[in-house]
């Protein structure tokens, strides 16, 4: 079983200490770099599977400059078999996903794990982009996983919100993005840390991946970073012309405004996507 885990070394920004409160500019010298916590969970899951299934291999892969090897080695020290760094720094997730997916394809895989999102860019997109490029199924935000290795499939659970969960059966090969709740990542043992320091990182030059400049497309660009506007807080005050009993009823009802019930649609992903696009066009969003 070949398991590939995509990780990212993220920059943790202290707010408001590292941000210029006048302009909204982030002081790059004050960023603290660390392994993305969601990716740490992904690595832990991959290693747990490797421990359960014989003849398995866990490969950690990241795209970035040499400074990202710190996070890479930490992830490797948790118990992986190989670590790869694609010497590639891109403008956005879409173009990074190209490099990652080509490298993953070259390596071969049965399962790919990603963190649900990176805590600095908060895009939540990398997993989907890679799955799309690899043309494999994807289940996002998993909170539990059961393997049925012989049948080459897994059964996972994901949060649906408001306490509901969805159980999904998925054939392998597939990509999974993980929620924090999936597991409790292990702390690397000291011998493994030293082994990780010594081990040579497999560095891939993007040219070696055969990516042509035309393929390196960014779909997004960052135009502006600004500070959040302070949120207005609505404080509910009961109508004082009402009697005490009515005022209490009003407070208990949660406010005078009634909520509109929404539609919960069902259908295949293609059908649902069609509905959503129609709705967006209707609301003149697109």
């Amino acid at each position, binding site marked *: 079983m070949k398991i590939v885990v995509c990780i990212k070394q993220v920059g*943790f920004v*202290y707010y408001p*200490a*590292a941000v210029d409160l006048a302009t909204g500019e982030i002081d790059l010298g*004050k960023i*603290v770099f*660390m392994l993305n916590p969601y990716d740490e969970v992904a690595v832990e899951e991959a290693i747990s599977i490797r421990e359960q299934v014989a003849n398995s291999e866990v490969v950690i892969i990241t795209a970035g400059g040499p400074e990202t090897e710190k996070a890479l080695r930490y992830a490797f020290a948790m118990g992986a078999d190989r670590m790869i760094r694609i010497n590639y720094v891109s403008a956005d997730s879409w173009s990074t996903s190209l490099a990652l997916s080509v490298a993953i394809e070259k390596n071969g895989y049965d399962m790919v794990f990603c963190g649900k999102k990176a805590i600095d860019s908060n895009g939540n997109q990398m997993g989907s982009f890679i799955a799309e490029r690899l043309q494999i199924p994807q289940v996002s935000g998993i909170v539990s996983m059961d393997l049925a290795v012989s049948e080459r499939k897994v059964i996972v659970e994901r949060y649906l919100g408001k306490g509901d969960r969805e159980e999904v059966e998925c054939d392998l090969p597939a990509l999974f993005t993980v929620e924090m709740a999936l597991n*409790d*990542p*292990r*702390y*690397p*043992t*000291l*011998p493994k*840390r*030293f082994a990780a320091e010594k081990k040579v990182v497999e560095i891939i030059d993007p040219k070696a991946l055969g990516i042509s400049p035309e393929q390196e497309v960014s779909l997004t660009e960052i135009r502006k970073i600004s500070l959040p506007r302070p949120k207005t807080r609505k404080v509910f005050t009961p109508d004082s012309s009402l009697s005490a009993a009515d005022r209490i009823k009003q407070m208990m009802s949660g406010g005078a405004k009634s909520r509109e019930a929404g539609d919960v649609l069902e259908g295949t992903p293609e059908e649902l996507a069609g509905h959503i696009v129609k709705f967006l066009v209707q609301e003149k969003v697109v």
Partner: protein
Amino acid sequence: MLPSAGKILLLLSIIVTLFFFGRRAWFLIKLLKSGRSLDRFDHPGERWKYTLGQVFTQRCSLKTVAKGDYAGIGHLLLFYGFCLFLVRYIFHIAEAFNEALSPAIFGSIFNNLFFLCLDMAGLIIMGAIVWAAIRRYILKPERLDPSLDAGIILGVIFTLMCLHYATEGFRFLADPKPFAVWSFVGTFLSYVFREMGWQRKSQDLYLIFWWLHILLVFGFGIFILYSKHLHILGSHFNLYFRPLGSKGALQLIGDLEDTESFAIDRVNDFNWKQLLDLYACTECGRCTENCPASSSGKALRPMDIIHNLKLHLLASGRELLKSKERGGAGKGILPVVGKVVTGDEFWACTTCHACVEVCPVNIEHVSRMVDMRRQSVLVESDFPAEYKQIFKNLEIFGDPKGKGKLTREDWTANLKINKLYQPEEGRPVDVLFWVGCIGATYDDRSKNTVIAAAKVLEKAGVNFGILGKEEPCCGDPALRMGNEYLFQKIANNNIEMFRKYGIKKIVTPCPHCFSVLKKEYASLGANFEISTLVDFIGGLLKEGRLEIKSKINATFTYHDPCYLGRHNSLYDGPREILQSSLGVNIVEMGRRKEKSFCCGAGGGNMWRGMSAGKRIEGLRIAEAVKTDAQGIVTACPYCEVMFDCAIKQEGLGYSFKLLDIVELVKQATID
């Protein structure tokens, strides 16, 4: 005085006894040798002086005497009596082979005095034994285990005394000697036996009792090596091989990459001194009695850990000696961490050192806890999940809570304080004021202490500076929690930074930072002078650089922080400041100075939640409130955080004050 057949029998008995004794002793020694190596063979002169001094003045026992616990005096009596009887037994055996080899060879005066002392000693011993038995089996103090082992020892010693007197009695009846009157109990008994009509049989009875006596002595001699009485051999060596370095300093791991050098898998992975500790334990229970974790209902009971390790070592001894390879349990060999000692036990330790301080035979409990934590964290990576976040925070953000360095200067908001990375022109920095994670990041209460300290130092005209945003954690939590790798990384970085800024003098308000910067950093090559804020202020007051404007007329109780007191022997400085300089009236708590009761924050416990039992800080505040003082004063930011919490929890926030000593100094010198 024995017939030749008797002499041969005696010789055989001696040989047999020596054989069994020697065989067991060799087994015990081999087990010691199978432990990790450790150099405690330095400074023999100092070591001999200490050991002989402690043993022959019985200071080891007398130091344990406290109100309500006078057992140390009983031990002193038993010890001296035992020494006397040891000499007697040597003569006893010698005399049996050649009558001339009696105490009389040193002259009749010596002989008379010797027997007088001996008989008196015998009575005192019997009295002490009865006292011990009443305590252990009837009064039953909490710390004593009414075990069979103890019962046998008490019983045998009492019987030996009876046999000694009976033997003497029959001897003087059968063969009156002129010196007999000095052996007054024996003489008295000889009269009794004569009244009983045993005159004719007295020679035979003498012989019978003589043999009974000597055989019981031999048997007991062998039994010593199989029971807790082993301490009479182990404890002397334990005193000799005590750590000579700074109190409380942990020995750092030399080569972190060599896992074999620090992994504790099986019990003889401990070093030989730690194994000797197990032999030396007399099972007095004082460690458990004084342990804050034990007192608050946690799983940790230090004596139980020592005892369980000892039982396991002896039970699996043969297997341990057979199998050379480390790792992987053989028959009956259990992994120490998790099986012989559980995580609940060693993680509850606050490293307060009350156990080490009170132990009469110098057992080192605390370093053992840290060694087991090292195994748990570095080798097995099997420890409670919430501790992982502390380590990650230290590694990534530089402080245990993960608040990061950017907010470490927030407390300086309205003050003009020199920062080492951006020193002000014309304001030299003579001394680094090391703030510490609590003062810099924890909460407003802690920040008040540091602000007060800065104002006092400024008032005294001290040219100090802070590291501010560049100040990292000192690494103490990582060290005490067993993450030696993280600690050495932090410490080496800090030492580099000290070198970069040319720092030669440091003052800090936190005793934990002080301890680790002074001791463990030194073993990593650091070279600077460091003092606690309390000591520094004491110096300023003495030099007249701080003037007391108004005395403080209040009654407070003073809490000796573990890392200021037991770890660094700084008890009087704070008291002097409070009483002489500030005019505070101190009412002391029962448990003070060396016997101070921990606030519960040490050993990394500050940064993680304590689980079972009562809150340690609650117990201490309850004790403080009982003194009827207006509040509690202490000199450690950790203690203050814990007490703040406890006071609020008891709803005493408005009636019981909590102050750091420097806040009082500020009040008296500036306000």
